């Protein structure tokens, strides 16, 4: 009889919609990634993608109003880390989310972008990205595949 499939493990993090609290999410994601089959660069890509998504929720969905909540859930599967960032603010245009890009001439200093790079970073760094509105909540989903062996939680070794 084969081994039973491992249950997915999940953690949910909630912060107030205040940019000064976002680092708590970043540090938490970094710590979790340190236990997963990611090298330093991949772990950084996960952390920065989550931070960018949370920043967007605060700045755009909630228009910098600090009395709302942003929820981040991380689900560890056998071969990947799934992440969802949820807010109850203004929704983004899904097409804009999934087709984000930064176009500029590196030699043309005057026209270099100073903002609007967050979605491009997420879509470049993560292996899959999706955006949905589910029961009046905006959900940005992303996932990153593990690089090496499949994940085996510390409690099972």
């Amino acid at each position: 009889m084969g081994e039973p499939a491992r249950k997915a493990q999940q953690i949910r993090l909630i912060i107030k919609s205040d940019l000064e609290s976002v680092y708590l999410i970043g540090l938490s994601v970094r710590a979790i990634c340190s236990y997963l089959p990611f090298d330093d660069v991949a772990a950084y890509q996960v952390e920065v993608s989550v931070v960018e998504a949370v920043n967007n929720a605060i700045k755009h969905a909630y228009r910098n109003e600090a009395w709302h909540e942003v929820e981040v859930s991380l689900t560890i599967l056998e071969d990947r880390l799934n992440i969802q960032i949820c807010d109850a603010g203004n929704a983004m245009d899904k097409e804009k989310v999934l087709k984000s890009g930064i176009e500029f001439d590196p030699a043309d200093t005057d026209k270099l972008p100073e903002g609007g790079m967050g979605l491009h970073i997420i879509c470049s760094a993560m292996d899959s990205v999706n955006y949905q509105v589910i029961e009046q909540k905006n959900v940005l989903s992303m996932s990153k595949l593990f690089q090496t062996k499949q994940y085996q939680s510390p409690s099972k070794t």
Partner: protein
Amino acid sequence: MQLHDEKIGDVLVVKPLESRIDASIAVDFKERMAGFINAGNELIVLDLSSVNFIDSSGLGAIVSSLKLLGRKGDLVISGIRQTVMNMFKLTRMDRVFRIFESRDQAVSALAV
């Protein structure tokens, strides 16, 4: 935010002492850099050796500083970690900034 600045000849070395340059301090950082530039500093080394995280807001503040310098000066980067460098590569900003391994190499390049 905490910044250390040091003048070496005509080159100003600015070293953020924060480990994270993110959206919560990006505006402050941008204003501090603008202060250095408006005070007449035209050759700037941004020493990122203490920084282990930058988001797009932090990166935007660095870009803003370069744009404020315009043609009259230059801003180069030193001490960047491999993880933070990945951020520059994801956004193609590694093609915009000259990046040096050490502060001394960066200062020498600007002092020429």
